[in-house]
């Protein structure tokens, strides 16, 4: 399927390259009225904020923009080129990983006189590109021109824990440009999306390979995501290490350092396998391949696959060459270590104690600097995967009431056990409270081993009152 789609897109490219003499007519200004939840008091919402960005029409009456332009959107308004009328839009598909989104507009009149822009190819370094957008909230479209400075794997700020292919340009890309097309020869060669504060003349855009991956992914009406190979690759440049692994020659092949459990590679690849080739790309000793003239980490090839697709690899193991087809899988387990969007935090309140899953969003909102929490979120998975809990739960806050006023804790603690039951996920908290028999609930925390008690009867009795006092309409969100 992906191959066919690619060629289809290329076809459109040819057809439309003639049409796009005035790409600005296909570029829209987007205003997003958004509202984020409060992760410390998860039933509450923060104030409504307004943000503006850029988008552009692509084939299929889709408006493409950045995910960060429309995240947490309550009301999204779109304006056409030189047209003051706002049109209501809604998010049809969103990839927070790749910072891309597709909006749809129900009113067909919106599309009158607008031609979709076609997606082109990865531009060459040193070639010239033009960005189209509405930076700094201006009413008029703005054009900036620059050259492609370099192409490399770069972390995407929006998810916070993913890196994809990124193109750097010296064309000015400012807030408000986000989601706008970067155009070369009438074709979209990128979506402007991020900059680095303090780094001048450096804007970044998302290249066609990532855009196309997203578009192919949603062809079946569902977004799956960008898969990972499930391996960590390390350079294999030390002569002794190469000799120990009986590596075939000195200039090819990097070493598989770690194979992630429960990944597509788990049974197929092993630590210390030498990865020689991925598809037809020869892997250098530092784990890079030459991809369209750029030396890039081999993961650029893995990321081309869709969820579940296999990527053929040639590996060297025990002095022999092996051919392996490694299925690429979308990895969700680390989502809490990145920014999460559009999904309201789960929580449970009992006796004024607020429990919620540990996440980066929580840590940031709570301004928590506890080493225990940081370790649990970012390090335990890699260091002690066996002791990893499905969904570590924190006591986010304690809503002051006489039943809990004497507790020595006020929140920001990882919950170990409640009434003797190990807490692996939020549902365990509810179950532990529901099924309690003793007079006191006993809540044990991780770290030093501190614990607190709560009178069972008094907590149950105070429950409604606490909810009413703090304006909590539901004691849980699951």
């Amino acid at each position, binding site marked *: 399927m992906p191959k066919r789609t690619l060629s289809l897109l290329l076809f459109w490219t040819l057809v439309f390259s003639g049409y796009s003499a005035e790409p600005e007519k296909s570029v829209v200004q987007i205003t997003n009225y958004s509202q984020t939840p409060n992760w410390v008091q998860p039933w509450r919402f923060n104030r409504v904020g307004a943000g503006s960005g850029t988008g552009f029409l692509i084939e299929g009456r889709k408006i493409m923009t950045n995910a960060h332009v429309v995240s947490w959107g309550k009301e999204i308004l779109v304006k056409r080129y030189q047209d003051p009328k706002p049109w209501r839009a809604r998010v049809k598909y969103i990839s927070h990983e790749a910072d891309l989104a597709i909006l749809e507009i129900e009113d067909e009149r919106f599309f009158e006189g607008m031609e979709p822009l076609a997606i082109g190819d990865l531009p060459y370094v040193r070639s010239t590109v033009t960005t189209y957008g509405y930076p700094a909230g201006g009413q008029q479209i703005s054009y900036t021109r620059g050259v492609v400075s370099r192409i490399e794997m770069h972390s995407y700020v929006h998810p916070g824990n993913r890196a994809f292919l990124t193109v750097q340009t010296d064309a000015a890309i400012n807030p408000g440009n986000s989601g706008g097309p970067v155009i070369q020869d009438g074709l979209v060669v990128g979506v402007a999306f991020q900059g680095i504060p303090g780094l001048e003349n450096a804007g970044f855009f998302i290249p066609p390979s990532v855009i196309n991956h997203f578009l192919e992914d949603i062809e079946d009406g569902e977004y799956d995501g960008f898969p990972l190979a499930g391996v960590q690759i390390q350079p294999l440049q*030390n002569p*002794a290490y190469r*000799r120990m692994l009986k590596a075939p020659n000195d200039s090819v092949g990097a070493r598989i*350092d*770690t194979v992630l459990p429960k990944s597509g590679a788990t049974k197929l690849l092993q630590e210390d396998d030498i990865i020689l080739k991925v598809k037809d790309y020869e892997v250098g000793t530092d784990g890079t391949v030459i991809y369209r003239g750029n030396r890039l980490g081999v993961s650029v090839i893995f990321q081309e696959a869709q969820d579940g697709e296999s990527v053929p690899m040639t590996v060297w193991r025990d002095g022999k060459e092996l051919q392996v087809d490694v299925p690429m899988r979308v990895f969700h387990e680390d989502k809490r270590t990145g920014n999460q969007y559009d999904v309201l935090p789960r929580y449970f309140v009992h006796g004024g104690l607020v429990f919620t899953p540990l996440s980066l969003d929580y840590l940031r909102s709570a301004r928590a600097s506890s*080493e225990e929490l940081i370790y649990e979120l970012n390090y335990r998975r890699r260091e002690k995967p066996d002791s990893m809990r499905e969904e570590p739960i924190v006591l986010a806050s304690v809503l002051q009431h006489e039943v809990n006023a004497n507790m020595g804790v006020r929140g920001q603690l990882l919950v170990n056990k409640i009434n003797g039951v190990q807490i692996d996920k939020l549902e365990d908290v509810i179950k532990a409270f529901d099924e309690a028999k003793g*007079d006191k609930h006993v809540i044990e925390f991780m770290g*030093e*081993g501190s614990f607190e*008690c709560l009178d069972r009867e008094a907590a149950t009795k105070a429950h409604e009152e606490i909810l009413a006092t703090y304006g909590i309409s539901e004691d849980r969100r699951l």
Partner: protein
Amino acid sequence: MKKSILILAALLLTPALAAFGQARPNGDKWKASVIDIEITGKSYDYIQPWSKSTRTLRKIGTVVGEREILTTALGLNDNILIRLQKGGRGRWFNGEVKWLDYHANLALISSDSDSFWEGLNPLELADKDFNAEGLKIARWRSGKMETRSAEFYEWRDRLSQQSFLSYMHLRANTEADGLGAAEPLVDGEKLVGIITGKGGDTLSAIPYTFIGPALKAVRAGESPKCGIFDFTWQPTRNPDTLEYLGLKGEPRGVTVIKVPEKKGRKSVLKVRDLILEVDGHKIDNEGEYEDPVYGHLTIENLTTANGRRAGDKVKIRILRKGKEMEVTYTMPAADYELDLVPDHIFDQEPEYLMKAGLLFQPLTEDFLRRWGSSWTTRAPFRLKYFRSKESTEKTPSLVVLTVVIPDPINLGYEAIRYQVVDKLNGKKIHTLKDLVAAFREPQDGFHIVELMKGSTAQRLVIDAERADDATQRVLARYGIPKDHYFKGEPTGGGLMRRPVGRRRGGD
């Protein structure tokens, strides 16, 4: 706390008047007792542990006895030269450390020179009748004795300057600035304490109550060690928790939440014991007790109160599973190595082992301090995280591969640094000596270094046969004098180990 201040004030009214009557100008009575001390010590660069330099600092000492100058232990570690000056000017005399204790933060310095002691007079230690409102701080400033006033504020336990040990300090309000160099806090001709620092308007001083028993023991030829409580407790204000633990009657006590897991150390306390009394002192829910003289102090102060020290037995009354009972707790000595990451390694050059350009160092806070004054936030998380862990039988200490010094033998590993070593050649690694032993057993001609799971790379392999040649090459090319330094070995590098003062004095 307020109550105790009132009592003190009442007690001290009479001597205060007396002191006023005797007052002489410009602190004459302290001139013969306050000594300037200049300490030169070795300072180490943990980035290049073989490289040494020196540091010099000035502080103050107080003559407290026959050829005895009392000061804090701060800055006396790794000293190579101690010089003493009396009268705030003139000749410097060589001194030497007679006794010091880093946990207690006290030291006695002496000098072999008879002429130094001429004209000096010891100050006596104060007692409970000191004048709380008429305290003075005495120090030399440009050859003149400067005296500043201070007013007693409270007794409070505070962490010792370089230790996890907490004991009762005296706190007093003063307008004097730049304090913390062990300036004597005096009442008339009596030493009330030596000053460790000032925060806001309040200075902290190690009081005579703590100094007295220590001096007594040292003079009796003993070498007392401070004891500690090696269990962790939590304040227990919550009546529900007290009820759950089975306490009847008035709320009191704190709960034990952690006991050490060290071999040969069976804890008499258990997790969830409610501590009701320590040495007959009733413990409240905050972990404090009411001392009839000093007011509210925390349990920790009972480790050192009344001259108590390591090895002493402490009666602890507890509630365990609803039953009251008494256990006898024997205090272990305060020791930096109780922690997985020791706070300090004093009087010893930094240990290291360099093999084939791979530099291994023990994980200590001294090492982490190389990240500067904000090291607790700036040091790598995976290293500083271990600070909250205690040294256990399974993991007594950690070794870090701190840097790879580039050489052909370690090609490809240059970027690996600050990773905890798990195994070498299949052997578990806790110390540098473990490494030495494991390096003797290469695997089929290779040394295989395994780093702790979650590291940037999990494994490094180097050529075992060429490793020693490479070590020599790295030593020569990078100007490193030696491939290792282990605790207790004679030091290289030409700096004197013995205090210069003693050598000269003995001539």
